[in-house]
Protein backbone atom coordinates (compact mmCIF):
# COMPACT_ATOMS: atom_id res chain seq x y z
CA UNK A 1 0.00 0.00 0.00
CA UNK A 2 1.58 3.29 -1.02
CA UNK A 3 1.61 6.43 1.05
CA UNK A 4 -0.75 8.30 -1.21
CA UNK A 5 -3.58 5.90 -0.61
CA UNK A 6 -2.72 5.89 3.10
CA UNK A 7 -3.57 9.53 3.37
CA UNK A 8 -6.79 9.23 1.44
CA UNK A 9 -8.04 6.27 3.41
CA UNK A 10 -7.07 7.94 6.64
CA UNK A 11 -9.04 11.06 5.87
CA UNK A 12 -11.96 9.07 4.65
CA UNK A 13 -12.53 6.63 7.45
CA UNK A 14 -10.56 7.06 10.61
CA UNK A 15 -11.98 8.86 13.60
CA UNK A 16 -9.98 10.28 16.48
CA UNK A 17 -9.56 7.51 19.03
CA UNK A 18 -7.79 6.80 22.26
CA UNK A 19 -4.54 5.69 20.71
CA UNK A 20 -4.50 6.66 17.08
CA UNK A 21 -5.54 10.29 17.58
CA UNK A 22 -2.00 11.61 17.83
CA UNK A 23 -0.80 9.39 14.98
CA UNK A 24 2.79 10.50 15.37
CA UNK A 25 3.71 7.22 17.04
CA UNK A 26 2.46 3.84 15.90
CA UNK A 27 0.00 1.97 18.11
CA UNK A 28 1.54 -1.17 19.61
CA UNK A 29 -0.62 -4.18 20.38
CA UNK A 30 0.95 -7.30 21.82
CA UNK A 31 -1.09 -10.48 21.68
CA UNK A 32 0.10 -13.48 23.69
CA UNK A 33 -1.20 -16.90 24.59
CA UNK A 34 -0.62 -20.62 24.42
CA UNK A 35 -0.38 -22.57 21.19
CA UNK A 36 -3.79 -23.46 19.84
CA UNK A 37 -5.72 -20.64 21.52
CA UNK A 38 -5.95 -18.44 18.44
CA UNK A 39 -3.34 -15.74 19.04
CA UNK A 40 -2.53 -15.53 15.36
CA UNK A 41 -6.18 -15.13 14.38
CA UNK A 42 -6.53 -12.17 16.74
CA UNK A 43 -3.44 -10.53 15.28
CA UNK A 44 -4.54 -11.21 11.72
CA UNK A 45 -7.92 -9.61 12.32
CA UNK A 46 -6.29 -6.60 13.91
CA UNK A 47 -3.63 -6.23 11.24
CA UNK A 48 -6.12 -6.56 8.43
CA UNK A 49 -8.42 -4.03 10.03
CA UNK A 50 -5.62 -1.52 10.48
CA UNK A 51 -4.51 -2.07 6.93
CA UNK A 52 -8.01 -1.47 5.65
CA UNK A 53 -7.86 1.84 7.45
CA UNK A 54 -4.84 2.74 5.43
CA UNK A 55 -2.31 2.41 8.22
CA UNK A 56 1.05 0.87 7.68
CA UNK A 57 1.06 -2.41 9.59
CA UNK A 58 3.93 -4.56 10.78
CA UNK A 59 3.21 -7.87 12.41
CA UNK A 60 5.72 -10.35 13.68
CA UNK A 61 5.00 -13.53 15.49
CA UNK A 62 6.46 -16.66 16.97
CA UNK A 63 4.21 -19.60 16.47
CA UNK A 64 4.40 -23.31 15.73
CA UNK A 65 4.42 -24.35 19.37
CA UNK A 66 0.76 -25.27 19.21
CA UNK A 67 1.37 -28.97 19.54
CA UNK A 68 3.47 -28.50 22.63
CA UNK A 69 1.17 -26.02 24.34
CA UNK A 70 4.06 -23.58 24.20
CA UNK A 71 4.07 -19.82 24.34
CA UNK A 72 2.86 -17.92 21.26
CA UNK A 73 3.09 -14.17 20.80
CA UNK A 74 2.35 -11.72 18.05
CA UNK A 75 3.46 -8.09 17.82
CA UNK A 76 1.14 -5.83 15.81
CA UNK A 77 2.25 -2.25 15.15
CA UNK A 78 0.21 0.13 13.05
CA UNK A 79 0.31 3.83 12.31
CA UNK A 80 1.12 6.22 9.47
CA UNK A 81 4.71 4.99 9.46
CA UNK A 82 6.06 1.90 11.21
CA UNK A 83 9.74 1.03 11.26
CA UNK A 84 10.53 -1.75 13.69
CA UNK A 85 8.39 -4.90 13.44
CA UNK A 86 8.69 -5.67 17.15
CA UNK A 87 7.57 -3.92 20.31
CA UNK A 88 10.26 -3.07 22.83
CA UNK A 89 9.84 -3.58 26.57
CA UNK A 90 7.56 -0.98 28.11
CA UNK A 91 6.26 0.14 24.72
CA UNK A 92 3.04 -1.82 24.23
CA UNK A 93 -0.15 0.22 24.32
CA UNK A 94 -2.36 -2.80 24.66
CA UNK A 95 -1.49 -6.29 25.89
CA UNK A 96 -4.01 -8.97 25.05
CA UNK A 97 -3.37 -12.27 26.84
CA UNK A 98 -5.34 -15.41 26.13
CA UNK A 99 -3.89 -17.17 29.15
CA UNK A 100 -3.27 -15.86 32.67
CA UNK A 101 0.38 -16.78 33.17
CA UNK A 102 1.30 -15.75 29.62
CA UNK A 103 -0.22 -12.36 30.34
CA UNK A 104 1.94 -12.00 33.44
CA UNK A 105 5.02 -13.15 31.52
CA UNK A 106 4.61 -10.33 28.98
CA UNK A 107 3.50 -7.64 31.45
CA UNK A 108 6.88 -5.80 31.36
CA UNK A 109 6.22 -5.02 27.70
CA UNK A 110 3.23 -2.90 28.61
CA UNK A 111 3.50 0.91 29.04
CA UNK A 112 3.52 1.54 32.79
CA UNK A 113 1.45 4.73 32.74
CA UNK A 114 -1.03 4.35 29.87
CA UNK A 115 -1.01 0.67 28.91
CA UNK A 116 -4.18 -1.39 28.81
CA UNK A 117 -3.99 -5.01 29.96
CA UNK A 118 -6.76 -7.36 28.84
CA UNK A 119 -6.32 -10.89 30.08
CA UNK A 120 -8.28 -14.11 30.02
CA UNK A 121 -8.23 -15.73 33.46
CA UNK A 122 -7.99 -19.15 31.83
CA UNK A 123 -5.14 -21.13 33.40
CA UNK A 124 -3.25 -23.62 31.26
CA UNK A 125 -0.76 -25.28 33.56
CA UNK A 126 2.36 -26.37 31.67
CA UNK A 127 3.66 -29.84 32.51
CA UNK A 128 6.90 -28.51 33.99
CA UNK A 129 4.91 -26.52 36.56
CA UNK A 130 3.71 -29.79 38.05
CA UNK A 131 6.19 -30.89 40.66
CA UNK A 132 4.43 -34.11 41.50
CA UNK A 133 2.19 -36.45 39.55
CA UNK A 134 -0.17 -36.68 42.49
CA UNK A 135 -3.37 -34.84 41.58
CA UNK A 136 -3.94 -31.76 43.69
CA UNK A 137 -0.22 -31.39 44.42
CA UNK A 138 1.16 -27.82 44.60
CA UNK A 139 2.18 -26.33 41.26
CA UNK A 140 4.75 -23.77 40.20
CA UNK A 141 2.09 -21.68 38.50
CA UNK A 142 1.78 -17.88 38.70
CA UNK A 143 0.41 -16.93 42.12
CA UNK A 144 -0.29 -13.24 41.43
CA UNK A 145 -3.88 -12.18 41.93
CA UNK A 146 -5.82 -9.90 39.63
CA UNK A 147 -5.67 -7.15 42.31
CA UNK A 148 -1.88 -7.23 42.37
CA UNK A 149 -1.75 -6.94 38.59
CA UNK A 150 -4.28 -4.11 38.57
CA UNK A 151 -2.03 -2.18 40.94
CA UNK A 152 0.86 -2.55 38.52
CA UNK A 153 -0.80 -1.35 35.31
CA UNK A 154 -2.94 1.68 34.58
CA UNK A 155 -5.93 -0.17 33.18
CA UNK A 156 -6.48 -3.88 33.59
CA UNK A 157 -9.32 -6.24 32.71
CA UNK A 158 -9.35 -9.88 33.79
CA UNK A 159 -12.08 -11.58 31.79
CA UNK A 160 -13.05 -15.20 32.11
CA UNK A 161 -13.34 -15.30 28.34
CA UNK A 162 -12.97 -19.06 28.09
CA UNK A 163 -15.94 -19.61 30.36
CA UNK A 164 -17.97 -17.05 28.40
CA UNK A 165 -17.11 -18.81 25.15
CA UNK A 166 -17.91 -22.17 26.71
CA UNK A 167 -21.35 -20.91 27.64
CA UNK A 168 -21.82 -19.91 24.00
CA UNK A 169 -21.09 -23.49 23.07
CA UNK A 170 -17.54 -23.28 21.74
CA UNK A 171 -14.58 -22.85 24.07
CA UNK A 172 -12.37 -21.96 21.14
CA UNK A 173 -14.21 -18.67 20.59
CA UNK A 174 -12.46 -17.24 23.68
CA UNK A 175 -10.01 -15.35 21.48
CA UNK A 176 -12.89 -13.56 19.77
CA UNK A 177 -14.32 -12.60 23.18
CA UNK A 178 -10.99 -10.89 23.84
CA UNK A 179 -11.10 -9.35 20.39
CA UNK A 180 -14.45 -7.86 21.34
CA UNK A 181 -12.84 -6.47 24.49
CA UNK A 182 -10.00 -5.06 22.38
CA UNK A 183 -12.48 -3.36 20.07
CA UNK A 184 -13.59 -1.05 22.91
CA UNK A 185 -10.03 0.16 23.41
CA UNK A 186 -9.04 0.79 19.81
CA UNK A 187 -12.33 2.15 18.53
CA UNK A 188 -12.20 1.26 14.93
CA UNK A 189 -15.82 1.41 13.78
CA UNK A 190 -17.89 -1.50 15.06
CA UNK A 191 -19.25 -2.67 11.66
CA UNK A 192 -15.70 -2.90 10.37
CA UNK A 193 -14.65 -5.05 13.32
CA UNK A 194 -17.57 -7.36 12.71
CA UNK A 195 -16.85 -7.54 9.00
CA UNK A 196 -13.20 -8.41 9.57
CA UNK A 197 -13.93 -11.01 12.27
CA UNK A 198 -16.49 -12.66 9.99
CA UNK A 199 -13.95 -12.78 7.19
CA UNK A 200 -11.32 -14.55 9.30
CA UNK A 201 -13.17 -17.11 11.42
CA UNK A 202 -14.21 -20.48 9.92
CA UNK A 203 -17.55 -20.21 8.10
CA UNK A 204 -19.33 -22.72 10.34
CA UNK A 205 -18.49 -20.72 13.47
CA UNK A 206 -19.49 -17.24 12.32
CA UNK A 207 -22.62 -17.19 14.50
CA UNK A 208 -20.88 -18.22 17.71
CA UNK A 209 -17.96 -15.89 17.04
CA UNK A 210 -20.21 -12.90 16.41
CA UNK A 211 -21.95 -13.60 19.71
CA UNK A 212 -18.56 -13.98 21.41
CA UNK A 213 -17.38 -10.65 20.00
CA UNK A 214 -20.52 -8.92 21.26
CA UNK A 215 -20.11 -10.51 24.68
CA UNK A 216 -16.51 -9.34 25.07
CA UNK A 217 -17.42 -5.82 23.98
CA UNK A 218 -20.34 -5.59 26.38
CA UNK A 219 -18.30 -7.04 29.24
CA UNK A 220 -15.75 -4.21 29.00
CA UNK A 221 -18.53 -1.61 28.78
CA UNK A 222 -20.10 -3.01 31.95
CA UNK A 223 -16.73 -3.25 33.67
CA UNK A 224 -16.06 0.41 32.91
CA UNK A 225 -19.36 1.38 34.53
CA UNK A 226 -18.51 -0.31 37.82
CA UNK A 227 -14.73 -0.21 38.11
CA UNK A 228 -14.24 -1.56 41.67
CA UNK A 229 -15.69 -4.97 40.96
CA UNK A 230 -14.51 -5.08 37.38
CA UNK A 231 -11.47 -7.22 37.98
CA UNK A 232 -12.66 -10.75 38.31
CA UNK A 233 -10.47 -12.97 40.42
CA UNK A 234 -8.63 -15.54 38.36
CA UNK A 235 -10.28 -18.92 38.41
CA UNK A 236 -8.97 -21.02 41.25
CA UNK A 237 -6.54 -23.73 40.26
CA UNK A 238 -8.37 -27.00 39.69
CA UNK A 239 -7.83 -28.99 42.83
CA UNK A 240 -8.92 -32.58 42.87
CA UNK A 241 -10.57 -33.87 45.95
CA UNK A 242 -7.72 -34.92 48.21
CA UNK A 243 -7.62 -38.64 48.56
CA UNK A 244 -5.27 -41.29 49.67
CA UNK A 245 -4.59 -44.19 47.33
CA UNK A 246 -4.69 -47.56 49.05
CA UNK A 247 -3.68 -50.84 47.46
CA UNK A 248 -5.57 -53.99 48.26
CA UNK A 249 -3.36 -56.89 47.24
CA UNK A 250 -4.75 -60.41 47.25
CA UNK A 251 -1.64 -62.38 48.19
CA UNK A 252 -3.12 -65.74 47.24
CA UNK A 253 -3.71 -64.60 43.66
CA UNK A 254 -0.31 -62.94 43.05
CA UNK A 255 2.00 -65.02 40.87
CA UNK A 256 5.12 -62.86 41.25
CA UNK A 257 5.26 -61.87 37.58
CA UNK A 258 6.70 -58.45 38.55
CA UNK A 259 4.71 -56.58 35.89
CA UNK A 260 3.35 -54.17 38.52
CA UNK A 261 6.81 -53.71 40.05
CA UNK A 262 8.52 -52.88 36.76
CA UNK A 263 5.74 -50.83 35.16
CA UNK A 264 4.74 -48.66 38.12
CA UNK A 265 5.59 -45.09 37.03
CA UNK A 266 6.50 -44.16 40.63
CA UNK A 267 8.41 -47.37 41.38
CA UNK A 268 6.54 -47.78 44.62
CA UNK A 269 5.94 -51.54 44.49
CA UNK A 270 8.30 -54.41 45.10
CA UNK A 271 8.20 -58.16 45.68
CA UNK A 272 8.54 -59.11 49.34
CA UNK A 273 10.43 -62.10 50.78
CA UNK A 274 7.56 -64.39 49.74
CA UNK A 275 7.70 -62.95 46.18
CA UNK A 276 4.34 -61.24 46.64
CA UNK A 277 3.78 -57.70 45.29
CA UNK A 278 3.87 -55.17 48.13
CA UNK A 279 3.50 -51.42 48.27
CA UNK A 280 6.73 -50.14 49.85
CA UNK A 281 6.46 -46.41 49.18
CA UNK A 282 2.80 -45.52 49.78
CA UNK A 283 3.63 -41.81 49.90
CA UNK A 284 4.76 -41.97 46.26
CA UNK A 285 1.66 -43.78 44.99
CA UNK A 286 -0.58 -41.48 42.93
CA UNK A 287 -3.39 -43.96 42.45
CA UNK A 288 -2.95 -44.11 38.67
CA UNK A 289 -4.31 -47.69 38.62
CA UNK A 290 -1.73 -48.95 36.11
CA UNK A 291 -0.85 -51.85 38.41
CA UNK A 292 -4.50 -52.75 38.78
CA UNK A 293 -5.08 -52.71 35.03
CA UNK A 294 -1.95 -54.64 34.13
CA UNK A 295 -2.10 -57.29 36.84
CA UNK A 296 -2.97 -60.44 34.86
CA UNK A 297 -3.99 -62.20 38.07
CA UNK A 298 -6.48 -59.56 39.33
CA UNK A 299 -4.49 -59.46 42.59
CA UNK A 300 -4.31 -55.66 42.89
CA UNK A 301 -7.21 -53.36 43.60
CA UNK A 302 -6.63 -49.61 44.00
CA UNK A 303 -8.92 -47.75 46.36
CA UNK A 304 -8.99 -43.97 46.42
CA UNK A 305 -10.05 -43.20 49.97
CA UNK A 306 -11.44 -39.70 50.45
CA UNK A 307 -9.72 -38.99 53.78
CA UNK A 308 -6.31 -39.98 55.06
CA UNK A 309 -6.55 -43.62 56.11
CA UNK A 310 -4.15 -46.33 57.22
CA UNK A 311 -1.73 -46.95 54.35
CA UNK A 312 -0.89 -50.62 54.69
CA UNK A 313 -1.82 -52.94 51.89
CA UNK A 314 -4.76 -54.96 53.06
CA UNK A 315 -4.74 -58.72 53.53
Amino acid at each position, binding site marked *: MNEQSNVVALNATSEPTAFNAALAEPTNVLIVGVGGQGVILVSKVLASLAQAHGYEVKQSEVHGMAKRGGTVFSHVRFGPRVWSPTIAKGEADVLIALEWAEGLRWLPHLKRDTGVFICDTKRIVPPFACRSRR*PGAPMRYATETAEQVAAYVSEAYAIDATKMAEELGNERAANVVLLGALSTVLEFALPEWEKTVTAFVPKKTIAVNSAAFELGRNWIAEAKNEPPSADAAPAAAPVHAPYQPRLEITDAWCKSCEICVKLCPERCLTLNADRIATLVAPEKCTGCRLCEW*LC*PDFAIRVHLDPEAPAMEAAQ
Partner: protein
Amino acid sequence: MFSDAPHFDVRDYLRKEMMPHFLCPGCGHGMALRALLWAIHELNIDRDKLAVVSGIGCAGRLSAYIDANTFHTTHGRPLAYATGLALARPDLHVVVITGDGDCLAIGGNHLIHACRRNLKLTCLMLNNEIYGMTGGQVSPTTSETRLTTTTPHGNSEPNFDACALATAAGAGFVGREVTRHVPKLKELIKAGLQHPGFAFVEVVSDCTEVYGRKNDMGSSAEMVLRQKSEMRPSAYRDSVDEPFRSTDLPTGILAQNNRPEYGAALRAAAAARAAK
Protein backbone atom coordinates in the same frame (compact mmCIF):
# COMPACT_ATOMS: atom_id res chain seq x y z
CA MET B 1 -9.81 -41.74 36.55
CA PHE B 2 -10.30 -39.42 39.49
CA SER B 3 -14.07 -39.27 39.40
CA ASP B 4 -16.07 -40.00 42.50
CA ALA B 5 -17.87 -42.91 40.85
CA PRO B 6 -16.58 -46.25 42.12
CA HIS B 7 -14.07 -47.70 39.70
CA PHE B 8 -14.89 -50.98 37.99
CA ASP B 9 -13.97 -53.93 40.20
CA VAL B 10 -13.17 -56.97 38.08
CA ARG B 11 -13.72 -59.28 41.04
CA ASP B 12 -17.46 -58.66 40.85
CA TYR B 13 -17.46 -60.49 37.53
CA LEU B 14 -15.25 -63.47 38.46
CA ARG B 15 -16.11 -66.87 39.82
CA LYS B 16 -13.99 -66.40 42.90
CA GLU B 17 -14.06 -70.09 43.81
CA MET B 18 -12.11 -70.72 40.58
CA MET B 19 -9.42 -68.17 41.43
CA PRO B 20 -6.46 -67.89 41.25
CA HIS B 21 -6.68 -68.80 37.59
CA PHE B 22 -4.49 -71.40 35.92
CA LEU B 23 -2.60 -68.99 33.65
CA CYS B 24 1.17 -68.71 33.98
CA PRO B 25 2.72 -65.70 35.76
CA GLY B 26 2.68 -62.65 33.51
CA CYS B 27 0.32 -64.14 30.91
CA GLY B 28 -1.39 -61.37 28.94
CA HIS B 29 -4.70 -63.23 28.81
CA GLY B 30 -5.58 -61.95 32.29
CA MET B 31 -5.42 -58.36 31.08
CA ALA B 32 -7.55 -59.24 28.06
CA LEU B 33 -10.13 -60.85 30.35
CA ARG B 34 -10.18 -57.71 32.50
CA ALA B 35 -10.74 -55.54 29.42
CA LEU B 36 -13.64 -57.74 28.27
CA LEU B 37 -15.31 -57.69 31.68
CA TRP B 38 -14.72 -53.95 31.97
CA ALA B 39 -16.39 -53.38 28.59
CA ILE B 40 -19.34 -55.53 29.66
CA HIS B 41 -19.57 -53.57 32.91
CA GLU B 42 -19.52 -50.22 31.13
CA LEU B 43 -22.18 -51.30 28.64
CA ASN B 44 -24.36 -52.46 31.55
CA ILE B 45 -24.89 -55.84 29.94
CA ASP B 46 -26.99 -58.08 32.17
CA ARG B 47 -24.95 -61.16 33.02
CA ASP B 48 -27.99 -63.37 32.50
CA LYS B 49 -28.06 -62.07 28.94
CA LEU B 50 -24.36 -62.67 28.38
CA ALA B 51 -23.11 -65.94 26.90
CA VAL B 52 -19.38 -66.52 26.67
CA VAL B 53 -18.32 -69.37 24.40
CA SER B 54 -14.74 -70.53 24.29
CA GLY B 55 -12.72 -73.26 22.64
CA ILE B 56 -9.66 -75.16 23.76
CA GLY B 57 -6.35 -73.71 24.82
CA CYS B 58 -5.15 -71.12 27.26
CA ALA B 59 -7.66 -68.59 25.93
CA GLY B 60 -10.37 -71.23 25.97
CA ARG B 61 -10.08 -71.61 29.71
CA LEU B 62 -10.95 -67.98 30.36
CA SER B 63 -14.68 -68.54 30.06
CA ALA B 64 -14.55 -70.68 33.19
CA TYR B 65 -13.60 -67.66 35.29
CA ILE B 66 -16.43 -65.42 34.15
CA ASP B 67 -19.49 -65.29 36.37
CA ALA B 68 -22.03 -65.48 33.51
CA ASN B 69 -23.43 -68.10 31.13
CA THR B 70 -20.33 -69.83 29.77
CA PHE B 71 -19.63 -72.66 27.33
CA HIS B 72 -16.34 -74.47 27.11
CA THR B 73 -16.58 -76.19 23.75
CA THR B 74 -14.45 -78.37 21.49
CA HIS B 75 -11.23 -77.36 19.83
CA GLY B 76 -11.70 -74.78 17.10
CA ARG B 77 -15.50 -74.90 17.27
CA PRO B 78 -16.53 -72.05 19.59
CA LEU B 79 -17.71 -70.00 16.61
CA ALA B 80 -19.86 -72.88 15.41
CA TYR B 81 -21.47 -73.30 18.84
CA ALA B 82 -21.86 -69.55 19.15
CA THR B 83 -23.50 -69.32 15.71
CA GLY B 84 -26.18 -71.79 16.80
CA LEU B 85 -26.63 -70.05 20.12
CA ALA B 86 -26.90 -66.58 18.60
CA LEU B 87 -29.42 -67.78 15.99
CA ALA B 88 -31.58 -69.55 18.57
CA ARG B 89 -31.34 -66.80 21.20
CA PRO B 90 -31.04 -63.43 19.48
CA ASP B 91 -31.67 -61.76 22.85
CA LEU B 92 -28.25 -62.86 24.15
CA HIS B 93 -24.95 -61.06 23.83
CA VAL B 94 -22.73 -63.85 22.54
CA VAL B 95 -19.01 -63.40 23.05
CA VAL B 96 -16.48 -65.91 21.76
CA ILE B 97 -13.07 -66.14 23.40
CA THR B 98 -10.63 -68.06 21.28
CA GLY B 99 -6.90 -68.35 20.78
CA ASP B 100 -4.80 -67.98 17.67
CA GLY B 101 -4.45 -71.73 17.08
CA ASP B 102 -8.05 -72.41 18.04
CA CYS B 103 -9.39 -69.69 15.76
CA LEU B 104 -7.05 -69.77 12.76
CA ALA B 105 -5.81 -73.35 12.50
CA ILE B 106 -8.33 -75.83 13.89
CA GLY B 107 -11.25 -73.42 13.53
CA GLY B 108 -10.03 -71.53 10.48
CA ASN B 109 -13.02 -72.48 8.36
CA HIS B 110 -15.46 -71.55 11.10
CA LEU B 111 -13.84 -68.13 11.32
CA ILE B 112 -14.07 -67.26 7.63
CA HIS B 113 -17.66 -68.45 7.40
CA ALA B 114 -18.66 -66.59 10.54
CA CYS B 115 -17.14 -63.46 8.97
CA ARG B 116 -18.96 -64.19 5.72
CA ARG B 117 -22.37 -64.61 7.41
CA ASN B 118 -21.92 -61.49 9.51
CA LEU B 119 -24.00 -62.86 12.39
CA LYS B 120 -24.14 -60.67 15.48
CA LEU B 121 -21.28 -62.08 17.57
CA THR B 122 -18.19 -60.69 19.21
CA CYS B 123 -15.12 -62.82 18.60
CA LEU B 124 -12.15 -62.08 20.82
CA MET B 125 -9.04 -63.75 19.44
CA LEU B 126 -6.22 -63.73 21.97
CA ASN B 127 -3.09 -63.95 19.87
CA ASN B 128 -0.02 -65.07 21.76
CA GLU B 129 1.63 -66.62 18.67
CA ILE B 130 1.86 -70.11 20.17
CA TYR B 131 -0.03 -73.19 21.35
CA GLY B 132 0.88 -72.56 24.96
CA MET B 133 -1.23 -75.14 26.78
CA THR B 134 -0.20 -78.14 24.70
CA GLY B 135 3.51 -77.50 25.04
CA GLY B 136 4.53 -74.66 22.78
CA GLN B 137 3.96 -75.84 19.22
CA VAL B 138 4.10 -73.46 16.26
CA SER B 139 0.80 -71.74 15.48
CA PRO B 140 -0.45 -69.96 12.34
CA THR B 141 0.48 -66.58 13.82
CA THR B 142 3.98 -67.45 15.06
CA SER B 143 6.35 -64.90 13.56
CA GLU B 144 8.98 -66.14 11.15
CA THR B 145 12.31 -67.36 12.60
CA ARG B 146 10.77 -67.76 16.08
CA LEU B 147 11.72 -70.84 18.07
CA THR B 148 9.02 -73.23 19.27
CA THR B 149 9.08 -76.90 20.29
CA THR B 150 8.12 -77.93 16.74
CA THR B 151 10.40 -75.41 15.02
CA PRO B 152 13.69 -75.88 16.85
CA HIS B 153 15.61 -74.14 14.05
CA GLY B 154 13.20 -71.24 13.76
CA ASN B 155 9.80 -71.00 12.13
CA SER B 156 10.11 -71.05 8.36
CA GLU B 157 6.43 -70.52 7.52
CA PRO B 158 4.97 -67.08 6.85
CA ASN B 159 2.42 -66.13 9.49
CA PHE B 160 -1.20 -65.09 9.26
CA ASP B 161 -2.47 -61.52 9.65
CA ALA B 162 -5.74 -62.48 11.32
CA CYS B 163 -7.28 -59.02 10.97
CA ALA B 164 -6.56 -58.92 7.23
CA LEU B 165 -8.10 -62.39 6.95
CA ALA B 166 -11.26 -61.37 8.81
CA THR B 167 -11.55 -58.17 6.76
CA ALA B 168 -11.19 -60.07 3.49
CA ALA B 169 -13.77 -62.62 4.63
CA GLY B 170 -16.24 -59.77 5.20
CA ALA B 171 -16.40 -59.28 8.96
CA GLY B 172 -18.47 -56.24 9.90
CA PHE B 173 -15.99 -54.97 12.49
CA VAL B 174 -12.29 -55.73 12.72
CA GLY B 175 -9.95 -54.30 15.34
CA ARG B 176 -6.68 -55.01 17.06
CA GLU B 177 -5.18 -53.84 20.33
CA VAL B 178 -2.36 -54.86 22.64
CA THR B 179 -2.94 -55.94 26.22
CA ARG B 180 -0.64 -53.21 27.52
CA HIS B 181 -3.29 -50.59 26.85
CA VAL B 182 -6.11 -52.07 28.90
CA PRO B 183 -8.38 -48.99 28.77
CA LYS B 184 -7.96 -48.71 24.99
CA LEU B 185 -8.57 -52.42 24.60
CA LYS B 186 -11.72 -52.00 26.69
CA GLU B 187 -12.90 -49.22 24.37
CA LEU B 188 -12.23 -51.39 21.31
CA ILE B 189 -14.13 -54.35 22.79
CA LYS B 190 -16.97 -52.01 23.69
CA ALA B 191 -17.14 -50.81 20.09
CA GLY B 192 -17.12 -54.44 18.97
CA LEU B 193 -19.91 -55.40 21.38
CA GLN B 194 -22.00 -52.49 20.10
CA HIS B 195 -21.47 -53.36 16.44
CA PRO B 196 -24.63 -54.87 14.96
CA GLY B 197 -22.79 -57.56 12.98
CA PHE B 198 -19.82 -59.87 13.36
CA ALA B 199 -17.07 -58.18 15.37
CA PHE B 200 -13.57 -59.62 15.27
CA VAL B 201 -11.13 -58.26 17.83
CA GLU B 202 -7.54 -59.47 17.83
CA VAL B 203 -5.89 -59.00 21.20
CA VAL B 204 -2.11 -59.13 21.01
CA SER B 205 -1.20 -61.01 24.16
CA ASP B 206 2.03 -62.35 25.61
CA CYS B 207 3.01 -65.93 26.31
CA THR B 208 5.86 -65.42 28.72
CA GLU B 209 6.57 -68.91 29.98
CA VAL B 210 6.58 -70.89 26.74
CA TYR B 211 7.10 -68.44 23.86
CA GLY B 212 8.98 -65.63 25.57
CA ARG B 213 11.35 -67.91 27.41
CA LYS B 214 12.22 -69.97 24.34
CA ASN B 215 12.83 -66.85 22.27
CA ASP B 216 14.80 -65.00 24.92
CA MET B 217 12.31 -62.13 25.10
CA GLY B 218 12.96 -61.28 28.73
CA SER B 219 10.68 -61.12 31.74
CA SER B 220 6.94 -60.68 31.49
CA ALA B 221 7.34 -56.95 32.24
CA GLU B 222 9.82 -56.60 29.38
CA MET B 223 7.41 -58.39 27.05
CA VAL B 224 4.64 -55.99 28.01
CA LEU B 225 6.95 -53.04 27.34
CA ARG B 226 7.92 -54.55 24.00
CA GLN B 227 4.32 -54.29 22.83
CA LYS B 228 4.58 -50.54 22.93
CA SER B 229 7.44 -50.39 20.46
CA GLU B 230 5.52 -52.53 18.00
CA MET B 231 2.07 -51.07 18.03
CA ARG B 232 0.92 -48.23 15.90
CA PRO B 233 -2.62 -46.87 15.87
CA SER B 234 -4.14 -47.31 12.45
CA ALA B 235 -4.80 -43.59 12.17
CA TYR B 236 -1.08 -43.02 11.66
CA ARG B 237 -0.56 -46.09 9.60
CA ASP B 238 0.02 -44.54 6.19
CA SER B 239 0.57 -40.91 7.01
CA VAL B 240 3.06 -39.08 4.80
CA ASP B 241 5.74 -38.47 7.39
CA GLU B 242 5.37 -41.89 8.98
CA PRO B 243 5.27 -44.44 6.18
CA PHE B 244 4.04 -47.84 7.20
CA ARG B 245 6.81 -50.24 8.09
CA SER B 246 6.06 -53.90 7.64
CA THR B 247 7.31 -54.72 11.12
CA ASP B 248 4.83 -52.39 12.76
CA LEU B 249 1.56 -53.64 14.06
CA PRO B 250 -1.41 -51.42 13.26
CA THR B 251 -3.89 -51.19 16.12
CA GLY B 252 -7.31 -49.69 16.57
CA ILE B 253 -10.40 -50.24 14.43
CA LEU B 254 -9.06 -51.58 11.13
CA ALA B 255 -12.27 -52.20 9.20
CA GLN B 256 -15.94 -51.51 9.70
CA ASN B 257 -18.87 -51.99 7.35
CA ASN B 258 -22.64 -52.16 7.58
CA ARG B 259 -23.40 -55.35 5.73
CA PRO B 260 -26.80 -56.86 6.62
CA GLU B 261 -26.75 -58.93 9.78
CA TYR B 262 -27.36 -62.62 9.10
CA GLY B 263 -29.63 -63.47 12.06
CA ALA B 264 -32.10 -60.66 11.33
CA ALA B 265 -32.15 -61.52 7.61
CA LEU B 266 -32.77 -65.19 8.40
CA ARG B 267 -35.61 -64.44 10.81
CA ALA B 268 -37.18 -62.02 8.34
CA ALA B 269 -37.07 -64.66 5.61
CA ALA B 270 -38.59 -67.25 7.96
CA ALA B 271 -41.37 -64.85 8.96
CA ALA B 272 -42.08 -64.11 5.30
CA ARG B 273 -42.37 -67.83 4.59
CA ALA B 274 -44.67 -68.35 7.57
CA ALA B 275 -46.89 -65.50 6.44
CA LYS B 276 -47.49 -67.07 3.02
